[in-house]
């Protein structure tokens, strides 16, 4: 199925706006058919997966949490290194960009608890990556059946007051997960929901929890940390959410509610706005939103269909770069461009400390709405100064391992998108480290 893109989808634009940024020679390698490179990725969702037998599966990740939060956070760094290494691989990387987008859509803060830190990377690998071109409702259900999300938003402790456990102990529900389900994950803040809908959704989600160590020891669950539906704390009775009634059905009640929310027209719009805001512009037009939302609805919520619809927008390949590249993406671009060494436990601070200082370390955004997609969050003078300092510091350490002249590298990275102003700036410094630092700060790296 060929994409029907509008405008001039040059190799440089494809790599920059919808990819992870060029590797040396990237534009030349895909120049013959840049759109074809995107189509190939969309046709092969398995490319989104990370193949690394060292990384834990779900059961192993849950078990890691037993070793305490320090061990769990150390493991999150292992997952971060794997994620960063993955970003070095593709020629273009549109699938990887989508994985990052959807992961941030279901943003989780690993500092919540050891179980969250131990499993958040595995959630991204085994749920987000596997459903990145599938149906949104399958991604949603996968996320909602995972301990990282359930514990992050306190649903593991939410008990229906009318449930057997609730009546016995006086325990009740909390609204945290239900509120974010509506406000962030599906219909959005303007989705028309009321406080009554939040409460109803919270009651429906009672019982969606994780096995505790004590329960596992008593044989009451597969293993500690694993998702389990506990009927004895699920609020009985039917519930009404956004005008739809969900009869009592145990776990199936929640599943039906999640699928309804995934299919809701407000969700289609909410997701469309977020996608366009992330990839193309801070100010999506109503027409563009409608086009992407329509693709979502007519395809039954297919994330492949919305990805295609995004690429087929008139604004997708407009020449002007309207988005600031946020810090994680910047580090990916820099490392791809200079062929930086692989990250190890000894040197990964070179990724982690800058991202911490720039407020873009994956899985650390405290609030569930995730890292901002707006330029204003990333283009402040203090942040830009930090980028400049970092560029110089990196080149101080790495310039020796980069081969070739800075100008030649610039041309091989950006091809026809390299501006004359950037060329002059790179040439303005005789000192090789300085010239490379200037190159790293060129707008070609920081806008897309």
């Amino acid at each position, binding site marked *: 199925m060929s994409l029907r893109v509008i405008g001039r989808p040059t190799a440089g634009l494809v790599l920059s706006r919808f990819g992870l940024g060029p590797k040396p020679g990237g534009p030349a390698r895909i120049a013959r058919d840049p759109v074809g490179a995107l189509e190939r990725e969309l046709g092969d969702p398995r490319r989104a997966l990370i193949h690394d037998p060292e990384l834990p599966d779900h059961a192993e990740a849950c078990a890691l949490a037993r070793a305490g939060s320090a061990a769990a956070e150390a493991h999150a760094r292992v997952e971060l290194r794997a994620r960063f290494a993955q970003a070095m691989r593709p020629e273009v990387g549109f699938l990887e960009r989508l994985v990052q987008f959807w992961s941030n859509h279901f943003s989780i803060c690993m500092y919540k608890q050891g179980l969250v830190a131990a499993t958040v990377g595995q959630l991204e690998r085994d749920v987000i990556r596997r459903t990145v071109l599938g149906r949104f409702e399958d991604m949603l259900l996968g996320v909602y059946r995972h301990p990282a999300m359930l514990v992050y938003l*306190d649903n593991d*402790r*939410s*008990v229906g007051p009318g449930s057997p456990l*609730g009546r016995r102990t006086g*325990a*009740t529900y*909390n*609204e*945290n997960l239900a*509120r974010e389900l509506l*406000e962030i994950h599906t219909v959005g*803040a303007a989705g028309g929901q009321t*406080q009554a809908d939040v409460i109803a959704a919270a009651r429906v989600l009672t019982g969606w929890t994780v096995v505790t160590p004590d329960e596992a020891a008593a044989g009451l669950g597969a293993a500690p940390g694993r998702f389990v539906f506990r009927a004895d704390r699920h609020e009985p009775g039917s519930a009404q959410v956004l005008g739809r009634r969900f009869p009592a059905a145990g776990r199936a009640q929640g599943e039906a509610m999640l699928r309804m929310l995934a299919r809701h027209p407000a969700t289609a719009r909410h997701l469309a706005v977020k996608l366009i805001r992330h990839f193309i512009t801070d100010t999506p037009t109503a027409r563009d939103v409608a086009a992407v939302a329509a693709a979502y609805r007519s395809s039954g919520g297919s994330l492949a269909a919305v990805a295609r619809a995004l690429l087929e927008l008139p604004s997708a390949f407009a020449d002007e770069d309207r988005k*600031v590249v946020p810090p994680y993406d910047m580090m990916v671009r820099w490392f791809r461009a200079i062929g*930086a*060494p692989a990250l*190890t*436990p*000894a*040197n990964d*601070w*070179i990724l982690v*400390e*800058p991202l911490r*200082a720039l*407020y873009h370390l994956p899985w650390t955004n405290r*609030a569930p709405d995730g890292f901002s997609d707006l330029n*204003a*969050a990333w*283009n*402040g*003078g*203090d*942040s*830009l*100064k*930090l980028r*400049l*300092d*970092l*560029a*110089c*510091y990196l080149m101080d*350490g*790495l310039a020796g*391992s980069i081969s070739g002249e800075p100008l030649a590298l610039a041309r091989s990275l950006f091809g026809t998108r390299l501006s004359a*102003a*950037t060329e002059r*700036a790179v040439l*303005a*410094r005789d000192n090789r480290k*300085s010239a490379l*630092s*200037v190159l790293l*700060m*060129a*707008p070609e790296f*920081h*806008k897309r």
Partner: protein
Amino acid sequence: MPAHDGEGAFGARDDLPETGCEESRLAVSRRSLLGVSAGLFSWSMMPSVALAGGGGGDPRLLVVVLRGGMDGLSTVVPHGDDDYRRARGRLAIAPDRLHRIDGLFGLHPELSRFAGMMRAGEAAVLHAVAGPVRNRSHFDCQDNLENGLPGRSDDATGWLNRMLGTLPAGDPVRARGAVHVGKAPLILHGAEPVMGWAPPVFPTAPGVVGDVVCELYDEADPLLGGNLAFGLRTHEIAASAVPSGDLAGLSGLRRGFVGAAGLMRQAEGPRVCVLSVDGWDTHALQGGATGQLADRLRDLDGCLDAYRRLMGAVWRRTVVLVVTEFGRTVRINGTEGSDHGVGTVALLAGGAVRGGRVLGDWPGLRTRDLADGRDLRATTDIRALFKGILADHFDIPRARLDTVVFPGSAAVAPLRGLVRA
């Protein structure tokens, strides 16, 4: 930062040199020789101006935004309300643990330094307060706290930025400007350029590289270029105002407050500062006299005190305003915590504050007194507090407050008399 063994491409972590070395700071920058547009860099080139404004002249304002919804009922406890113990259940704090203010209210045990400020008349509380948006959503209510609008909006400007914009061009507060410590908050977004500061992380880039990059951006991306130049200038000011030695060994939060004081006490420094504190969303295991909330309050209390001491003589012209986006449910929830609510407290501290009291209209804690039968009702609109402080501390006229700074707020009367003339 964690120590690392072994080599790796960048060598051992300890190689990282001290930031802001003499040489980089003194390096002559071509940009500063050429001069820059007056709007951005007016503070460095301003002649001394006659001091204007209230608060004894040359006012300072530190806004501390507590993100997550601080439980006002545990921060300033209505121990004298007959329904308190029953309504709060296991969240209730015994009256004998509190720092008593009066027959109705007492401060949480961990606010010992703030209690001292209250006794000295330099701190005050406004209880049962909330913004006009009361839908219990973090995002909507934080945005509303910061954009100062009458209802939900995606407007991206903050009331504090708009306040700066209403000041006359020569006004020292506007000229000296505002700074955010840490991430840029909505409350300072807008047309007025504001500085951002955070403890330095990497060595400062050589001035010559910065010059080339600034020139490149001037041509290729003027918006980024302007921002970068501004950031570089801010660094120059801050490097002398907050030596890295002052920050060594402090917690992240404490460094923020120390940095704020370092910047604000300078004669040439910013007059307005905003910093944020996370971690108030106590849905689970909130605790009472001890526990998670208590730990947060202890940190905050210590930071406010450190800030006060570092501000020195300038403290008497300073107002610290501590606000949060909403309060929490009166009743404990199913996870030994509280969920999102409505009414909460705002705290004031500073030598310029006419304090020693709790203001507000106490609505009571009987179930019929509560908002939706679950939350402390808000009887004061927080914009009244903001307007009162801006009127008394910065002499902002009522007409401007009602239209530009807080659009659509004509019916909200400023709470005057909180700041010394």
